[in-house]
């Protein structure tokens, strides 16, 4: 899937903004680094978060990684499919493997994040 229009963080989260809401997930690079993802711990809907807060925990066979909120907002939806199929993150990082839908506190905050081209350069750095 094309990553055009997605915004990325240095810690490998992506954000797809639609009006005042945004879907977020882990980059394809990140899922590849982690390997087989076997468990995802997601926040409750309604949770308010600041930029940099731990939003979720993703476990692969060998590692535990925290997922940070790229921006401030409120969790309005979580991807319930990940409970039974955490490997969706491996197979479709930018699609069915999304983690959380956030309502953004300040849409302008996304301007701080990287474009897909900048992120690609970052991962090759």
């Amino acid at each position, binding site marked *: 899937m094309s990553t055009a229009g997605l915004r990325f963080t240095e810690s490998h989260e992506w954000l797809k903004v639609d009006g005042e809401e945004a879907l977020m997930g882990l980059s394809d690079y990140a899922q*590849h680094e982690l390997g*087989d993802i*076997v468990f995802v711990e997601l926040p409750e809907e309604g949770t308010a978060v600041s930029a940099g807060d731990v939003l979720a925990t993703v*476990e692969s066979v060998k*590692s535990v*990684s925290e997922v940070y909120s790229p921006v401030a907002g409120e969790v309005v939806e979580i991807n319930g499919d990940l409970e039974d199929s955490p490997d969706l993150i491996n197979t479709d990082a930018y699609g069915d493997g999304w983690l959380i839908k956030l309502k953004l506190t300040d849409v302008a905050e996304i301007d701080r994040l990287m474009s897909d081209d900048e992120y690609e350069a970052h991962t090759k750095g």
Partner: protein
Amino acid sequence: MVACVFGRKGYVLNVETSVAKTALYDRHVAADARIVDFAGYAMPIQYRGIVDEHRRVRSTAGLFDVSHMGEFFLSGSSALESLERIATNRASALVDGRVQYSAMCYENGGFIDDLLVYRLGDSYMLVVNAANKAKDLDWVTSHLLPGTEFRDASDETALIALQGPRSEDVLEAVGAGSFASLGYYYAARGDVAGRTALVSRTGYTGEDGFEIYCEPGDALTIWDALLEGGAPLHVEPVGLGCRDTLRLEMGYALYGNDIDDTRTPAEAGLMWITKLKKGDFIGRDAIVEKRAAGLTERLIGFELEGRGVPRHGHAIVSADETVGVVTSGTFSPSLERGIGMGYLAVGTDGPIEIEIRSRRLKAKLVDLPFYKEGSVRRA
């Protein structure tokens, strides 16, 4: 996302440093393995993915490079007597070509290491964990009786583990089918792919398989031949990541996790390799005393009832009290659930929970091994 435990894919460690390379290192790099520093060796942790590699070993066969393991030789007129002093199992029971799982303990009964002991003619080969090699060497050499010669053959020995239910067929395909008659925990010297090797029907996966000791200069030939011969069975190289999930599904202890110098064979469930009646050995008195006083904790296996992954260091809780600690935990690819081993206070009754970060997850005690379908041969 932070804290990847792996190096980057295709990442090649800076070998200018003290990291050692095995004879097969170039093959791992060429196969795009993820390489990590493991006990001072640049070792492949995974090639394609741990779960995929795990299933390869359970279904047909996989090939591990475990050349980082240490090999010591004891020989001379008092070799057996020396070995009986430093190892817990009864070395005198070994006939030529027989292999034995054993351990070495300090005077206080704490584990120095667990090991395999091979009787090869009149000498004995000790195969020890890579991380403990230096410590073991010091201990063994300082506890030998006069008349025992010691040789560290680690640097002149490569070790390839062929593991999986179709391992016999793979050996057959490289003209080494005669090893099919080897019994479980026996070893013999012979020809593999035109090279001389010591072939041992042993392993750390719960599947049938062979561990092949050879000279480093022959390792590439044997490795390539096994992969080529095993191609119809989809035999592939597999990494240390799945070695850990495979051994844990079998409830096999890992030094540094489940056993270490603070644990003795008594609470680790390893009295079956500790022969109190064979005569004196280092650590015997402490183990006898510990058993007489009554064990306070015991190594157990558990599986999570819900979703989650237990890890080394997590607390085991019962009725809001900490009653133990997880020593090994993982997601079991075969059982598709969280499994683990840990030390649990003797006398704990009632349900247990595992404390994973801020959550407590219900777990139930289960008999080992977790995985009961393995093709491993019993003696």
